[in-house]
């Protein structure tokens, strides 16, 4: 591979755009390369190492984390040095291959967004690695597990650093295949491999959109895969709006499947079949945020294609908004603790996509950032719980665990509160910023935003209440009441609790990196730090659109806090009642005369939720079974009885015709070659003899017809 060029993007507005360099920034390729190398190392030598290869994985990801931190530091100092001017992303690009006049390049693109993700991915991955050494200890495929954790991390880092859309596809698919392997880690059980298949196939459905979208963008942008150029051209109006809309919609399909957005989210809860650390990694840092990252990366395309500025609804925001509600409502009826968290992830990803859809780019990335920590904490916490009770069923096997597992309980509670969005925990700040970003809050005062997305605000608020309520339910069922499982649960070891505490600290503090501007309690220089370093400053001919920023409003913040309190409070009140009844001998998990038993409508709603809006039936029962069943069988039937029958019918006559041919070739070949090959020719002769139909006249007829056709062909053509 030859080094073609370093950091070149034609910068017309050079006066305003600062070009930067720096060893870590321009050598960022090392960050994914280390875990990739460790994948091969673990795969080939892992079993011979004293700790089965896990130490290699931890060292590799740790090294990546250090490098990511160094990169981040260098980026921060660069931005500081730019004094508010737009900073050119650091691009390194090599020619990968060339064919038919199309250059495929490979390289890295480092900017604030990439740096933020690098940190999140490596940090979470490291903690998950450490956690896994305890969690999957003794597993039959311990080494493989760590090998693929490494590859998973490497793929995601590769995706994050992608310089062009082709690389994004590569990273995207590699992430998908790693998730397939890891979800299906315990493939002996059919449900697990089913879940893995479902995850991969659902993602493949979205990949249609990705492949088509990237192709359309490539040609629309005048033959380039470069993310920066595509964005720049989209924003400069060089690409027609229709093409942008088409490609944005295609890419949205990819996002919907990858990030578990509404109507293709069904694979995500099933993916809980994988080991818990994998779930944490998928949900917090690697797999599902890829979709969000894709939108954020190609934001120019989406911004122009979806006309985000100045409208009040668009596909991105609508899908995101619906997803928040669907996810949150489904989280209510789950008994499996990991499934509650899975649906909560769906709902939170909906927030992010919605934020991107309404133009609150920074808020979306900020939420991605904070969510990664508290969701990882929640997943690892649930894993710790299941480690103790050997089950994931909250109703049957949990309850009252706060006394047995104090560390898990405390971290889980902190993360839950962060997820619910109570100040001053991380979730509050990011969620609030999204709600503000909808711009649909005229009633609450305040200005800014890219449009009046009132519907999105309402959905966001509703979800906030639901989130608080279902997390209350989850925490209650797991840690309060009396213990309903078997045996004596006990707290997990240090390799599990230490990561939990680290994550809990982040779940508290991550939100403080981007305090809103109007938050007068702290010095002004402390506010909006995250946005300052991550969000590119817009400039002429630049890859990032000019987006409006909403000014936060106290009213909105207070209303959202109230909504959360009401939601959580109602749930708490319900379970307090349950508790009292349980003391009197009732069920410890639900009211005997709850709303579902009293109102038909509620029961109907409950059934609808338990059946997951029947989407799974639609996909698995109708689409997948239909394709693999009747449609495929039909096609095959057609093949055997349609096309092949024609062939066979022709063949029956032609067999005889073939004879004339055979007799000639047969004679020559048997005399020439096969006679001397002994048994072979005997076998062949045996075969050939049986091919004779014996009807001389049939041979003759076919011979006549065949020769006439040949003659006709010659006559007609010549």
């Amino acid at each position, binding site marked *: 591979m030859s080094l073609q060029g370093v950091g070149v993007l034609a910068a017309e507005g050079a006066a305003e755009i600062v070009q930067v360099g720096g060893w870590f920034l321009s050598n960022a390729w090392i960050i994914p390369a280390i875990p990739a190398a460790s994948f091969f190392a673990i795969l080939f030598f892992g079993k011979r190492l004293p700790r089965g290869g896990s130490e290699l994985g931890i060292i590799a990801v740790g090294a990546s984390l250090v490098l990511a931190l160094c990169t981040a530091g260098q980026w921060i100092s660069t931005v500081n040095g730019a004094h508010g001017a737009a900073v050119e992303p650091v691009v390194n690009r090599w020619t990968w291959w060339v064919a038919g006049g199309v250059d495929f390049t490979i390289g890295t693109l480092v900017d604030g967004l990439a740096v933020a993700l690098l940190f999140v991915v490596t940090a979470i991955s490291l903690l998950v690695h450490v956690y896994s050494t305890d969690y999957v200890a003794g597993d039959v495929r311990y080494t493989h597990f760590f090998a693929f954790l490494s590859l998973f991390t490497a793929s995601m880092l590769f995706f994050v650093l992608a310089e062009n859309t082709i690389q994004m596809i590569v990273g995207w698919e590699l992430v998908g295949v790693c998730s397939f392997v890891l979800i299906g880690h315990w493939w002996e059980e059919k449900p697990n491999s089913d879940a893995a298949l479902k995850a991969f196939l659902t993602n493949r459905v979205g990949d249609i959109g990705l492949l088509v979208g990237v192709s359309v963008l490539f040609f629309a942008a005048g033959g380039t895969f470069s993310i920066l150029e595509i964005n720049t051209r989209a924003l400069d109006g060089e690409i027609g709006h229709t093409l942008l809309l088409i490609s944005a919609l295609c890419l949205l399909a990819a996002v919907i499947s990858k990030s578990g957005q509404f109507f293709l989210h069904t694979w995500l809860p099933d993916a809980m079949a994988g080991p818990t650390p994998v779930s944490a990694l998928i949900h917090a840092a690697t797999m599902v945020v890829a979709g969000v990252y894709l939108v954020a990366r190609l934001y120019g395309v989406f911004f122009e294609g979806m006309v985000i500025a100045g409208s009040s609804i668009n596909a991105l925001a609508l899908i995101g908004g619906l997803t928040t509600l669907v996810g949150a409502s489904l989280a209510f009826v789950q008994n499996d603790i990991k499934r509650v968290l899975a649906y909560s992830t769906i709902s939170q990803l909906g927030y992010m996509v919605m934020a991107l859809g309404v133009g609150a780019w920074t808020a979306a990335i900020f939420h991605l950032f904070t969510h990664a920590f508290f969701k990882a904490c929640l997943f690892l916490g649930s894993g710790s719980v299941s480690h103790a009770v050997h089950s994931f069923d909250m109703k049957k096997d949990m309850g009252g665990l706060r006394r047995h597992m104090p560390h898990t309980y405390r971290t889980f509670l902190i993360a839950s509160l962060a997820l619910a969005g109570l100040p001053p925990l991380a979730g509050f700040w990011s969620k609030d910023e999204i709600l503000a970003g909808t711009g649909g809050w005229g009633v609450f005062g305040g200005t800014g935003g890219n449009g009046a997305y009132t519907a999105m605000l309402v959905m966001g608020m509703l979800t906030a209440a639901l989130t608080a309520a279902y997390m209350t339910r989850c925490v209650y069922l797991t840690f309060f009441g009396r213990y309903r499982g078997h045996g004596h649960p006990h707290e997990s070891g240090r390799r599990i609790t230490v990561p939990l505490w680290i994550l809990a600290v982040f779940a508290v503090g991550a939100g403080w990196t981007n305090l809103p501007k109007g938050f007068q309690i702290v010095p002004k220089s402390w506010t909006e730090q995250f946005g300052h370093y991550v969000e590119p400053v817009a400039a002429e001919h630049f890859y990032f659109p000019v987006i409006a920023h909403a000014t936060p409003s106290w009213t909105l913040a207070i209303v959202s806090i109230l909504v959360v309190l009401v939601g959580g409070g109602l749930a708490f009140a319900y379970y307090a009642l349950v508790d009292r009844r349980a003391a009197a001998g009732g069920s410890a998990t639900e009211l005997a005369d709850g709303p579902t038993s009293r109102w038909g409508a509620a029961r109907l709603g409950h059934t609808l939720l338990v059946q997951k809006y029947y989407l799974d039936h639609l996909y698995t029962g109708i689409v997948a079974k239909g394709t693999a069943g009747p449609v495929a069988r039909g096609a095959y039937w057609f093949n055997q009885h349609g096309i092949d029958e024609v062939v066979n019918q022709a063949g029956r006559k032609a067999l005889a015709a073939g004879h004339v041919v055979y007799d000639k070739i047969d004679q020559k070949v048997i005399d020439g070659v096969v006679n001397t090959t002994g048994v072979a020719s005997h076998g062949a002769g045996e075969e050939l*003899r049986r*091919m*004779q*139909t014996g009807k001389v*006249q049939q041979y003759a007829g076919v011979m006549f017809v065949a020769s006439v056709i040949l003659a006709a062909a010659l006559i007609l053509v010549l």
Partner: protein
Amino acid sequence: MLLNQFLILSAVLFAIGVYGVLARRNGVLVLMSIELILNAVNINLVAFGSYVSSISGEVFALFIITVAAAEVGVGLAILLLLYRNRQSVDLSEADLMKG
């Protein structure tokens, strides 16, 4: 005379011969139809020979007559043998070669 009138006649006879070869079950009749085909070819040869004023066409026709005689001889001998063994010259029954 047009060359074509001979050629077309020959084509018609040839086609009739083809029909005979395919439609007849009696071996003797099939052999007769083959004679028809051969004669059609002979007409062609002689006609072309005249057309290009060459003697070769006739010589070839003579050869074909000879070969046809030989063919009939051997063909009828085979039919005799067939008849002797099966008491029939029905070709549709003679499918010993069937695998």
